[in-house]
């Protein structure tokens, strides 16, 4: 596509500054550790084996936007992927928005002013099962586990908030930076993309305090969410659990990618707030204030403590149907079911009954969708927590491998595999 080079040349790309990004990950910080700072110059390199936004520490805001792809054939799809690559490369690195003759509409929304700061922005491109239908000839190379999300027993899925040909996970220090990126992408892809649904969310900042151990941010049920997440900076572990590699028996083009399971999970917060604390803690299997696993009498532990279920086979300390015990039984047989969670809290307004429409934009990544989210969710089916939550939307997507350099684009390996 000839336009691409011109466009890249036209924008003043900020110099990549990985050192800054590394500094922000800090010591021993997990993907879901509560964000501590909002450095507008925080910049993650765009190019690489993997896309950003997966093992990247979760910032204070994130959204998932699912699209229908309107491209009419493979050439148009390639154009779309190249435009997305070019826009994501610019937006995540930051730079100056070009000026335009004022008789024309301005080139961008202007909501960040003329100089775009990277602001910790990551835009992660993933594709849905429906992109592999008969439109683009991709059916033969569909990732092995990619499928249309089926409702689980407690789900009440709304058609208008499910699935999609393509999804963008947009995360940044502030929602405004995410909205700017989304509007820029929409403006640059007319006729190629149509928004299908969108859900944004936030996690509370936790200002650093001396001597503090990193804690996971809290969800809208008041519990720390992300405790016991596999460590995002453990590359070997990520290669085992999160990134698709040669040992995962997927089409070769998919190496370096990952499965994304997205779920919009409504929380019945008023009812939850009327539930005794002890019951809340038994439902989750953790202390609410500290996040520590439940323990016998004695001093309360800390969030990072590893629960010992082997000494509690009857569930006298941690009920057998407690959320964290079902999700991760901590047995050798279930170690391969671990997933990397990266959720955000959402608040959408008010329901007809006067109750708040709040919940969790649950996002998780795994190298094997069946062994990961689907298996974990099946273990959770029927858990006591279901009385307080209702999944209403979401979808399964496959995060494309990264774009390796200026000559590469997101999705190149997918198209090449079916050329």
């Amino acid at each position, binding site marked *: *596509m000839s*336009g*691409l080079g*011109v*466009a890249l*040349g*036209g*924008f003043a790309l900020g110099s990549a500054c990985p050192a800054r990004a590394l500094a922000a990950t800090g010591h021993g910080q997990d993907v879901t550790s509560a964000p501590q700072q909002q450095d507008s110059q925080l910049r993650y390199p765009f190019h690489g084996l993997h896309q950003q936004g997966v093992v990247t520490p979760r910032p204070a805001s994130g959204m998932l936007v699912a699209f*229908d792809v*309107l*491209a*009419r*054939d493979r*050439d*148009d799809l390639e*154009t*779309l992927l190249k*435009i997305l690559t*070019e*826009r994501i490369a610019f937006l995540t690195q930051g730079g100056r928005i*070009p*000026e*335009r*003759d004022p*008789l*024309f*509409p301005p*080139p*961008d929304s202007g909501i960040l002013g003329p100089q775009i700061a990277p602001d910790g922005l990551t835009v992660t491109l993933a594709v849905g099962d429906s992109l592999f239908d008969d439109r683009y000839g991709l059916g033969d190379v569909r990732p092995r586990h990619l499928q249309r999300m089926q409702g689980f027993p407690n789900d009440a899925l709304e058609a208008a908030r499910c699935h999609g040909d393509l999804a963008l996970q947009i995360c940044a220090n502030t929602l405004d930076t995410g909205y700017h990126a989304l509007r820029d992408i929409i*403006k*640059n*892809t*007319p*006729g*190629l993309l*149509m928004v299908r649904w969108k859900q944004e969310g936030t996690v509370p900042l936790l200002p650093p305090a001396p001597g503090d151990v990193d804690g996971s941010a809290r969800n809208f049920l008041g519990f720390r969410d992300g405790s016991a997440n596999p460590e995002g900076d453990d590359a070997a572990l990520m290669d085992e659990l999160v990134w698709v590699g040669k040992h995962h028996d997927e089409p070769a083009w998919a190496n370096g990618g990952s499965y994304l399971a997205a779920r919009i999970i409504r929380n019945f917060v008023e009812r939850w707030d009327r539930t005794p604390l002890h019951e809340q803690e038994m439902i989750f299997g953790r202390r609410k204030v500290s996040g520590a696993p439940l323990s016998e009498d004695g001093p309360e532990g800390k969030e990072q403590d590893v629960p010992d279920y082997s000494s509690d086979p009857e569930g006298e300390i941690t009920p057998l149907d407690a959320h964290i015990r079902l999700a991760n039984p901590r047995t050798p047989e279930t170690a391969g079911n671990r997933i990397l969670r990266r959720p955000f809290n959402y608040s959408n307004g008010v329901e007809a009954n006067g109750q708040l429409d709040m919940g969790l934009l649950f996002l998780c990544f795994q190298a094997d969708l069946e062994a990961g989210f689907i298996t974990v969710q099946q273990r959770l089916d029927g858990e006591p927590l279901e009385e307080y939550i209702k999944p209403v939307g979401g979808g399964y997507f496959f995060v494309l491998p990264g774009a390796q350099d200026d000559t590469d684009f997101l999705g190149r390996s997918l198209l090449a595999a079916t050329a």
Partner: protein
Amino acid sequence: MKTIIPKTWLAAGALGLVSSTMTLTTTAHADVAPAALVGPVADYKLYVLDNLEQLVSHTEDFTAAVQAGDVDKAQALYAPTRVYYERIEPIAELFADLDASIDAREDDYEKGVEDPDFTGFHRLEYALFHDNSTQGMETYALGLMDDVNDLDGRVQDLTFPPQTVVGGAAALMEEVAATKVSGEEDRYSRTDLWDFQGNVDGAREIFDLFKPLAAKEDADFVARVQDNFDDVEATLADYRLDADDPNAGFESYDKVSDADRRALTGPVTVLAEDLSTLRGVLGLN
């Protein structure tokens, strides 16, 4: 439906970003002399007046049918009457009071259908297609007729500002993008495709009148817009009840497949983006 459509429309996808960078090196200020706009603007006024004349006479028949209690006839005349209004919306909307009383939808009122201020075409649509009745509609029919006559009189006296006329092409496509593709405009009669076609007709008229001027500034732009209009009209044509008779109208919007709604969204959005630059291409403030 068939989707054998030239792919040139797609170029705009890339164009959005390319053009935004190109202005770094080129100043795309158009060189159109103000006098050159006089002819097309005058022609457009004739087009509007012609459609207004049709609107008045069709509204006479439509409101007469309502007053006569002839539900079937009134239902049949509803969409063919409205289409003249939809074509000239950029001008009609200049008179906000009349636009509200003629064409507002129930969503525009806090009390919805029951709101006493809810009048005009869509109030009658609700009676005719939801209640299947003309009961109590005489007042609304008379009011609509008065409003349409009022509009006619006001437009006769109106000096058409060139920027409003040229900007009207984009405004019409924004109408389509916002309320036609979603099917919320005529939710009871399901005659959305009539309005859809009316908006497209009106936008294309404006574009065609200024096309020679625009072509001198940016021939690729003109070619792409034409192709996208053709795409939209080809898809709409698939839903005509009689290919040879435009007056036969369209299938119910319920019959339009999700795939076709998406297929329409593509070129409609590209047209909205492209036509939003028409004023700039012609150097109009």
